[in-house]
């Protein structure tokens, strides 16, 4: 029967790892302390932050409705819209924005940490911005890079970056600076094919004013690169990794002064990409029309932090009350069930981090509710165990019977809650989704902790000694 000890040790190791992963602060502090005292070099535990929803960290959530009446391929149009808006949002400097298509014609834009709603809304709804940038002087470039470095240092030290002189410069492109030539001088963009290679290319035709500007720009930039940006990003996936981001730069070298107001964009792109690009440039708008947001939610950063803290305290007090109740009414098994409950909390929090689950107020509500429900399985089992003990069975038989007889009720009642969670998850809104998901996750993990972990504990800790003092059971 050594097997049960191995399983027991396995459970303990799992619980401790989950606990440290869920809340590594104390562990890492003690590591620092020991490293300092004993001059060891024990590394910190792997740290991963919780993903917090907008209602807990503050920010703006916007919902847009796209007008798809004129469009045949609706799914493609929506995914194009999503890509464009995501690029614009990224330009806004938001950390971890999410832009997702909801249903057939909705676009959900979440901007954590953003407080200037007005600016965000106008940024998202603007027409695409085509710009031609020329190279900065080496001195200018260096100046911006220096500020960027300062800002980065401040960010890693968690200092207030707005205290750095000219910190806004760090938001600029260090290598290129915008010229006066923009998409507004564009008369039309057409797709053409190179006469020798057959590769698709886009020809831009500027109006008279634009032609004049372009001629000046090309004249002063001969043998230098001229970068072309659309909505702040390169227009072509130049490194071929499948997405257009900061690593791409489309900057052809100017060969000679161009006076006729035409420019040709070449590069590795498929005919389809060339066509979408050209049509976006021509329409001068998003691939799909969106109006003002049809729903908006702004949460101030202080409210978010306060909500998070209050709900965490609610959880801690709730957990404490459940533990006291279990120990008072179910004595020794109650104590074991309480330990299993604490392990349950640690494992669930660790899983929240691993998946990761975006924690919202609703999700925390579901999780806290699940703490109260998690011991139900234990209560059913212990009630059965007590009955078996009363009817004169030996302890080990009573424990076995208790688990066996309580199982059908545990299965039925939890299955029933899972059905409700599933319906809530698939039908309802994001608030309810968050709630249903954490509640369902909680139910599943609690079945493991209440049945498997408690059982191992009982097998390991309840031996012959308990036969003499049955009252503790």
């Amino acid at each position: 029967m050594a097997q049960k000890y191995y399983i027991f040790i396995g459970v303990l190791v799992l619980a401790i790892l989950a606990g440290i992963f869920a809340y590594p602060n104390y562990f890492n502090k003690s590591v620092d302390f020991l490293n300092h005292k004993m001059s060891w070099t024990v590394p910190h535990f792997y740290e991963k932050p919780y993903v917090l929803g907008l209602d807990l960290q503050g920010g703006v959530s916007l919902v847009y409705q796209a007008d798809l009446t004129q469009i045949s391929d609706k799914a493609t149009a929506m995914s194009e819209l999503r890509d464009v808006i995501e690029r614009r949002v990224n330009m806004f400097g938001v950390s971890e924005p999410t832009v997702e298509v909801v249903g057939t014609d909705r676009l959900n834009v979440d901007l954590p940490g953003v407080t200037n709603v007005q600016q965000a809304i106008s940024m998202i709804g603007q027409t695409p911005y085509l710009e031609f940038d020329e190279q900065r002087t080496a001195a200018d470039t260096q100046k911006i890079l220096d500020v960027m470095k300062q800002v980065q240092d401040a960010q890693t030290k968690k200092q207030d970056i707005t205290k750095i002189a000219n910190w806004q410069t760090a938001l600029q492109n260090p290598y290129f600076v915008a010229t006066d030539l923009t998409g507004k001088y564009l008369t039309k963009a057409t797709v053409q094919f190179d006469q020798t290679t057959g590769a698709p290319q886009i020809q831009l035709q500027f109006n008279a004013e634009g032609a004049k500007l372009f001629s000046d720009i090309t004249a002063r930039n001969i043998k230098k690169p001229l970068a072309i940006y659309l909505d702040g990003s390169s227009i072509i996936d130049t490194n071929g990794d499948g997405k257009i981001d900061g690593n791409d730069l489309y900057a052809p070298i100017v060969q000679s002064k161009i006076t006729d107001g035409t420019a040709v964009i070449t590069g590795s792109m498929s005919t389809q990409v060339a066509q979408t690009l050209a049509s976006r440039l021509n329409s001068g708008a998003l691939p799909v029309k969106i109006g003002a947001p049809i729903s908006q939610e702004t949460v101030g950063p202080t409210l978010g932090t306060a909500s998070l803290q209050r709900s965490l305290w609610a959880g801690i007090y709730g957990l404490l009350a459940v533990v006291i109740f279990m120990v008072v009414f179910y004595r020794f098994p109650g104590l074991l069930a309480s330990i299993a409950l604490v392990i349950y909390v640690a494992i669930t929090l660790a899983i929240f981090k691993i998946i990761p689950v975006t924690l919202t107020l609703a999700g925390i509500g579901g999780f806290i509710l699940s703490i109260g429900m998690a011991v139900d399985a234990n209560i059913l089992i212990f009630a059965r165990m007590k009955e078996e003990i009363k009817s004169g069975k030996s302890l080990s038989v009573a424990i076995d019977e208790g688990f066996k007889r309580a199982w059908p009720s545990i299965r039925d009642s939890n299955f029933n809650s899972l059905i409700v969670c599933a319906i809530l998850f698939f039908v309802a809104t994001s608030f309810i989704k968050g709630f249903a998901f954490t509640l369902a996750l909680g139910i599943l993990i609690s079945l493991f902790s209440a049945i498997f972990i408690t059982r191992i504990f009982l097998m390991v800790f309840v031996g012959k000694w308990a036969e003499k003092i049955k009252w503790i059971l």
Partner: protein
Amino acid sequence: MTFNFTKYSAVYYIISGVLILATIVSLFAYGLKFGIEFVGGSNMEIQFQSTRPSNETISSALKSLSLGDVTVQPTGTNGAILQFKGVDEATHQQILTALNKLSPSSEKSFQYIGPSIGQELRNSTEVAILLALVAITLYIAFAFRKVSKPVNSWKYGVTSLIALFHDVLIPIGVFSILGHFYNVEITVPIVAALLTILGFSVHDTIVIFDRIRENILRRGMGQFEDTVNWSLTQTLGRSISTVVTVEFVLISLFFLGGETLKWFALALIIGITSGAYSSIFIASPLLVSWYKSELDKHKLL
């Protein structure tokens, strides 16, 4: 020892009957006050730095912006929750400026729900409620599929459904009254709570009914009423413990959880208490009463 739970069935029926009647009256008289996420509109939470202007001052300061009906509700020491019709971002900023002029303030949260979203949310909530009811009915039919004499299996299903409606109606009644007198709205979290009650209520009843069937199998048909009372006595400890542990976390959420989770917790507290009560004092006595009335019919024949 066996408690005689079914002895005073009539009293329990009357108590629950009165509560349900009160709910229905309140629903007709006051109706339900739905939150803006269901009807569309704007909701704004403001924190004034020093003093909170009176509700009338706030309303009149915003009059020129034609926001429709503006309701102002004080919250916390210097806060206020404002509700008005749906506005665009420009108007939203004008409101903030107007309030700032009145007394320096900062915005804690702002929510705008367009009319189409509200309508959609109402529809999807209705679908969720219907689906949950259908799924639970099917589940009950499945759980009690094995015929058990002396009471037909479908009767277990029907009585658990009656208990289910009882448990959902009572919190709805409470929120109808709270909505009328204290402006408490039916919001998405409260709908989530009501749907959770659906699950929980059945959960409780199933445990007791499982025990009744098990005891019938063990002890033979015997006296049905005694078997029910014996089963209720056996499961009483579990019923109390389960409700108490859940109520602990919910009460903690009610007092500490903040504005959003407060009413969500209250709905669950009422529903779960009602669920525990109805499993013992409504669902099980109903089974016995039904059984007895069938017996009487047979005797008459």
